[in-house]
């Protein structure tokens, strides 16, 4: 007989098929409002995923990047400025320390390597760093050294330079090219008369070092207009005349320790007992402090991102809610055909969830666009390279969360659809 109850599962199976028919149809029928809402959701999801991944990657790149050194010794002052200047080639130098201090620290037990560096010039905004050739022996990370991809390393007695990969790419410097350094660590300073020959282009290391131009430290001392005050007295280098060690000075000394525990001893010696210099150790902690101090910015960005998600979820709800009145007759017809209230309710919740899910998927395009753009800017400004393919849990949680949020806000219009007066809405519309 026709009115016998259905077998268990029959209604559920056909209910699902009804949803699969009704939901895509409704999305197409309301294509304009659906598209606008999907776009809003895509922007929201892309923004949220970007905020979390850029924050994490920037944190990891600055704190856990292949720095290659454990500590930095420099002039008395800010540890952060010292690290930013010597490791990330950002900021200005906090001042100089005498060469004799470098010698002293180099001979301290537990110091495995000490690389003196001198800064103060640039070429087209890319910092020129004077170092000893030992810099190129340092392993920045497992198997990663500053080594020429083309050409060779500089001769420390000549006006030769090796150029970081990014600096070479941006300045157009090639092996065999000549350039004149300009005074100052940023673009716009007076051009020096000394001409340097590019003898090597370094292989990319994806570190801030790719943005530097490396010359012999002696070259910095002998650059016209540079004065040395290592002994406290003014000294200007003269051609053909050796510079006494007591007159030399360095911007910083990059230190590699034999073991981490030596850092505490050095810290005690330099920072607590001494007053001539500052030791930034460990480097990662100094940068982590910066991120910690700047944590409120991240939290505000996260808050803004959550608000954008909230607004887009509200947009989904408003978009569907506004269509419910014009769709009351459709719901009444469906109910008159035998559709249960749960079918109508579920169709609206699914429709809302589907809009959120489509938006979330498109959000990946927005995410890649934002992260790729941010990666270019961050690399330009800091030399730190973000990996846009790096996984972050936000890449899964955001789309899933957005879809759930979409389905949840769909409950409001779904309740309205659920309670449609069937008899009243089947009447002719005049």
């Amino acid at each position, binding site marked *: 007989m026709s009115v016998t109850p259905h077998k268990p599962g029959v209604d559920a199976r056909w209910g699902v098929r*009804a949803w699969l028919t009704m939901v895509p149809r409704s999305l197409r029928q309301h294509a304009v409002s659906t598209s606008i809402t999907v776009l809003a959701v895509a922007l929201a999801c892309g923004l949220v995923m970007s905020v979390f991944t850029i924050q994490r990657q920037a944190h990891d790149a600055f704190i856990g990047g292949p720095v290659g050194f454990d500590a930095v010794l420099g002039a008395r002052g800010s540890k952060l400025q010292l690290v930013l200047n010597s490791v990330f080639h950002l900021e200005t130098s906090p001042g100089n320390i005498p060469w004799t201090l470098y010698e002293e620290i180099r001979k301290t037990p537990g110091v495995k390597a000490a690389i003196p560096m001198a800064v103060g010039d640039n070429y087209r905004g890319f910092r020129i760093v004077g170092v000893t050739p030992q810099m190129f022996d340092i392993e920045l990370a497992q198997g990663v050294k500053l080594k020429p991809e083309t050409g060779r390393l500089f001769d420390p007695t000549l006006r030769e330079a090796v150029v970081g990969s990014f600096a070479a790419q941006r300045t157009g410097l090639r092996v065999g090219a000549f350039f004149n350094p300009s005074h100052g660590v940023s673009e716009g300073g007076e051009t020096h008369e000394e001409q340097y020959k590019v003898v090597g282009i370094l292989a990319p290391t994806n570190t801030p070092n790719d943005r530097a131009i490396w010359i012999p430290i002696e070259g910095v001392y002998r650059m016209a207009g540079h004065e040395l005050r290592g002994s406290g007295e003014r000294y200007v280098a003269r051609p053909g005349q050796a510079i006494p060690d007591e007159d030399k000075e360095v911007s910083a000394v990059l230190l590699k320790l034999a073991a981490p525990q030596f850092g505490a001893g050095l810290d005690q010696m330099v920072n607590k007992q001494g007053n001539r210099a500052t030791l930034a150790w460990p480097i990662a902690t100094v940068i982590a402090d910066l991120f910690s101090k700047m944590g409120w910015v991240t939290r505000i960005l996260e808050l803004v991102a959550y608000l954008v998600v909230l607004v887009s979820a509200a947009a989904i709800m408003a978009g569907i809610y506004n269509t419910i009145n014009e769709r009351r007759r459709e719901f009444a017809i469906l109910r008159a055909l035998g559709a249960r209230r749960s079918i109508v309710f579920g169709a609206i919740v699914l429709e809302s969830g589907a809009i959120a899910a489509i938006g979330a998927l498109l959000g990946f395009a927005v995410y890649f666009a934002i992260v790729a753009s941010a990666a270019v800017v961050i690399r330009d400004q800091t030399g730190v390279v973000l990996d846009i393919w790096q996984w972050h849990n936000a890449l899964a949680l955001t789309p899933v969360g957005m879809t759930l949020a979409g389905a949840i806000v769909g409950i409001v219009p779904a309740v309205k659809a659920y309670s449609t007066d069937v008899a009243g809405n089947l009447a002719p519309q005049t």
Partner: protein
Amino acid sequence: MPEMPVLRVTSLKKTYRTPDGERHTIIDIPTFELAEGRQVALRGSSGSGKTTFLHMLAGILRPDSGSIEIDGVDITAAPESRRDQIRADAIGYIYQTFNLLQGYTALENVRLAMMFGHGVDDARARGLLERVGLADRLRYRPRALSVGQQQRVAVARALANRPRIVLADEPTGNLDHRHAAEALRLIRDICLEFGAALLLVSHDRAVLEQFEDVRELSEINRAASDAKIAS
């Protein structure tokens, strides 16, 4: 053995509250039966409770009291989900305004009705639309169809789930004289063909003349006859 009625109505009452706050009885039917496969026309004027009666028979509206049995199952005592199922499985409904889903093609309108019943039978859906003369209009949406064609889709949809009874509420009210006659003939023929009883309500004399069994709503609905006496 007496023939089992496909529809049996007993002591059915429905009232509604007027703007003055009083309760007005719109339906008061002591008894009404429709035998399997029979075709009955109910004559009733506007406001006589025709649509309310059909809505209650379909389980769309709940009566205040009384019972409505479809194939022996009292739908007034059944929970809403069961009434929905009975409506989908056993009752076909043809409306004056067709009530087709505008976003769906003719074929999809029929298929969707099947989803809420015994399940989609694509061959049957196509067969029904071919039977009503719309073989070349399967993919047309209602707006692309003439009024007469829309009514034929509605007829095919009403028969989608092999109903035991078809309820038709002024089914030719929106059609011109020629199309009305055609539509009526189609509804009657197809109900006979598929073994469904037909209960049609109308106030159109031309329609009612086509039926052998025509009953006055005022004769079975005491509320309508009271209103008549009062007027």
